[in-house]
C-alpha cells in the first residue's frame, strides 16, 4: 500500500484507506474527498501533474476527473493493480 503521491502516472490503483492523521484538519478533508467520489474500493489513476513541482495532480476516480493538491493526496492510500 502506497500514498497516492507515490503512484506513477497512468497506473490503475485501488483506494485502500484514508490516513487522516497525517495532516491537520485531516478528518474534514477525508469527508470532502468522500463527497467528491473518493471511497474505499474506488479505482484511481493519476492522469496529469501540474507543471510546477508536479503539483497539483489530476486523477480519475471511478471515471470522474478531479484535481487535488499533493498535500491532500498524501492521505489517500492506494494499492497499484
Amino acid at each position: 500500500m502506497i500514498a497516492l503521491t507515490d503512484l506513477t502516472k497512468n497506473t490503475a490503483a485501488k483506494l485502500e484507506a484514508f490516513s487522516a492523521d497525517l495532516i491537520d484538519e485531516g478528518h474534514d478533508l477525508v469527508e470532502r474527498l468522500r463527497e467528491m467520489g473518493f471511497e474505499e474500493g474506488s479505482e484511481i489513476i493519476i492522469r496529469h501533474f501540474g507543471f510546477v513541482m508536479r503539483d497539483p495532480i489530476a486523477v480519475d476516480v471511478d471515471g470522474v476527473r478531479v484535481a487535488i493538491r499533493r498535500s491532500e493526496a498524501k492521505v489517500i492510500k492506494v494499492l497499484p493493480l
Partner: protein
Amino acid sequence: MSSAVRLALVGSPNSGKSSLFNALTGARQKIANYAGVTVERKLGDFTTSSGKDYEIVDLPGMYSLKGRSPDEKVASDIVMGKFEGEKQPDFLIAVLDTTHIRKQMRMVLELRDLGVPMMVLLNMYDLAERDGFEIDTDALSKELGVPVVKSVAVRKAGMTSLQEFLDKGVDLDQKPAGKTDGTSGQKSTTAYQSDARTVAKKVILKEGMQGRITRQLDEIFLHPVFGVLILMLIFFGMFQAVFNWAEAPMDMIDGSIVSLQMLVDGAMGDTWLKSLLVDGILAGVGAVVIFLPQIIILFAFILFMEGSGYLARAAFLMDRIMATVGLNGRAFIPLLSSFACAIPGIMAARTIEHPRDRLTTILIAPLMTCSARLPVYTLVIGAFIPNTDMGYGLGMQGMVMFGLYLAGILSALLVAGILKITLTSGTSQYLIMELPRYRWPEWHNMVIGLYERVKIFMRRAGTMILFSMIALWVFASYPKPPVGATENDIYYSVVGWLGRLLEPILQPIGFNLEIAIALIPGMAAREVSVAALGTVYSLAGDDDAIAASLVDMLQDLWTLPTALAFLAWFVFAPQCISTIAVAKRETNSWRWPAFMVTYLFIMAWVASYLTYNISGAIIG
C-alpha cells in the same frame, strides 16, 4: 406569485443546473444575494404550456448537505427550511449529471431522507449514452420512491420530458421513501456511500468511460509545456482584449458624454443647475457606463472558459504558483484583469469558491497597476525622468514604468502573504476541484450570464458610483469663493478645505497643498487627478493641452523627490470610489472595503515617505 409552487434545482456543481435554469426561465430571472452572505440567489418564473406557474430557485451547487462552504451552507439550509427569510422549496429537482451518477447518488439519498417531495432529473442523458452508460430509470424510481425523468443535453429541445412532467403538475403530497423524517445528515457520509453503492449496483446497467474527447483535450491543455503555453496565450489574448478592444467603445462612451455635456452647456444659462447636470450627473453617469466595455469583454472570456470547462484547467495549471502566497489557481484571472481595471477584476473574484481566497483576492486586486494610473505615470515620468538610453534598447522612462508595475505586484504578494497568516487565516482550504467534461458553451447561457453581470454592476455598484460622483461635484463646487477672491475657485470649496486638512499629513511625504487638493477629485478615477492638477494650477483647455502644459509647470513647481513620491503614492493609490463601491458590493460589508482603503493608504504613505526622504538624501 406566492401561489406558484416553488421548485428548487439541487445538485453538485457542473451538473448542468444553471443551464437548465436559464433554459426554463430565460431572462425572467431575479438575481440578488442571500441576506447577509455573498452567495447568489437566483430565482425565476416558469409557466408550462398549459399555464401552470412555477417559481424556480437555482440553489448554489453542493456536494453534500453538510454545508462545508458558504455556498453549500446556504443551499443545504434552504432545502432543509432552516434559512431565515427563505421559504422552504415545495418540491426538489435533484439534477444529476448522468455520467457521474455513481458519485452523485449519495447526495440524492441524503436529499431523499429530508422527506421533501422531490424528483430526480438525469441530465445530459444523451452524452452518457454516447459514452456507453445505460441506466434503468424504472428501477431507480422504485428504489428511491420518487419520479425519475431523463433530459437530453442542456438544450431547450432536450427538456421536453421535464416540461411535460411539470405540466402534469408535481405531487406535493409525495412522501419520499426516506428512512428518517426531515432530518438529514444523521447518517455518516460513509453510511450513505455504502447505500449509494447498493442502489447504483441495481440501476446502472452499463457503465462507460467519461468522454474520450475530454481525455484527449486534457492531454494538450494540461500538458506541462504546451498546456502552459496555451494558457499564457489565452491570458495574453484576454488581457489584450480587456485593455485594447475596450478602448474604442470606451472612447465612444466618453465622446457621447462629452457631446451631451456640451449640448447642455450650450442650451442652458450659467446656473448651478447646469453645473450639477454637466459636472455632477452627466460626469457621474459617464463614470459608471465607462466600465461596461471592460466588464462585458472580460466576462465574455470568463463565461466562455467556465462554460467550456477550461476555467478549471486554467486553475489547475496556475494553482501551485498561486499557492505560494496562499491563494488558489482561480485567483489568477481576477488579478490579471485588474491590470486593466480593478472593477471587473474584483467582480471576477466570484469564480473563486473559497471565501478566504476570494476575500484576499479582492483586497489585493487594487495593487495591480490599472490602466487609469497610466496617464498619471506618463505625465510625471515625462516631466521628471530623462529618457536616457540604458543600452539594449531600454530607456530610463520605460524602466521606471516597469518598476512601478513590479512594485505593485510585489506588494500584492507581500500583502497576500501577510493576510494569509493573519486576518484571513483559519481552517486550511483545500483544492479539491472537479475537472468537468469539455463542452461547447451555449450562446444562450453566455448572453444571459453577461446580461446578469451588467445588471448587477449597474444596479448595485453603479448607483453608488453615481451618487459619490454627484457628492464629489458638490464638494468641489461649494462653498463658492467670496467676492474678490484671488485663488482658484476650488480652494474655497469643501475639497479645498479637505485639502488643507490633509496637507499636514501629506507634507512629510513631499506633497504640497496643490497636490493634496488634486488628490480628492482624483477619487472619482485616478486619471482625473491629472485634470484636477490642471484645475488647481489654473490651466485651461482640453485634457491633452492641460497634460502638455502641466509637464512644464510641474518641472518648475515640483522637486524630483516630490515627483518620485507622487509616483510611489500612485502604486498604491487608495483613492478610487468605484473600487471601493465594488468591493463593498462583492464583500457585502463596509468592514473589508474600509480595511482595504486603510491599508492601501498606509502603504501609499509609507512608500511615498521612504521615496521622498531617500531620494532627497541621495540628491542632497
